[in-house]
């Protein structure tokens, strides 16, 4: 089994890229791979706790929680989060916050990297 690192940049909750990213991460975890996920830019919105799910509106908090229980290692860009007012106190439990060197280090020991750009 290998390690897949996914970097998801500049995507808001409700975006196609974040939805795709979590589904791909889930498929990789189901096949026994290790998955690191880095969210940057507006993608850090995914890390906020107490997201409310509405019918017919994309909500990723619950799927993210389930993936973390399966072993997903997710880290949000700390500077991107702070710039948007997402502080440590309103970060979802289990989501780490680091500077971009975390992503760089993860890509260096990953078997495969998928860098998903902004929308």
């Amino acid at each position, binding site marked *: 089994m290998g390690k897949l690192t996914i970097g998801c940049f500049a995507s808001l909750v409700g975006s*196609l890229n974040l939805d*795709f990213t979590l*589904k*791909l991460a889930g*498929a990789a975890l189901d*096949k026994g791979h290790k998955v690191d996920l880095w969210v940057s830019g507006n993608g850090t919105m995914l890390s906020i706790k107490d997201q409310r799910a509405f019918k017919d509106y994309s909500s990723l908090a619950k799927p993210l929680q389930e993936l973390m229980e399966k072993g997903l290692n997710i880290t949000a860009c700390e500077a991107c989060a702070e710039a948007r007012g997402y502080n440590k106190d309103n970060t979802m439990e289990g989501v780490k916050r680091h500077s971009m060197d975390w992503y760089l280090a993860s890509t260096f020991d990953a078997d495969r990297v998928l*860098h998903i*750009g902004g929308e």
Partner: protein
Amino acid sequence: MKLAVFVSDYKMTVDTLERLKPEKMGIILVQNGVYHASVKENGNASSVLDSSADLYALKEDLETRGIDPANVDSKVKVVSFGDVVDLIFNDYEKTAWL
């Protein structure tokens, strides 16, 4: 190098794809990129399908857009998320996102 390129939009990305010259290339159509697999303009299929690369389209994204996977161009293989994971790990060394 064996390169898998994810095409996520219906805008024409042929110029970019043509500049890529890996030893082996796969084009994985995802999100709105799956329209390349089925939409014809003036009777012509998308020029993305003229590529010599292996072509794939994500089944879930086809179905989300009301496209019957049975009706995509015959050059395109319909794949699941699990298949995409296998392509990433087994068939290609690097990935790119367009």
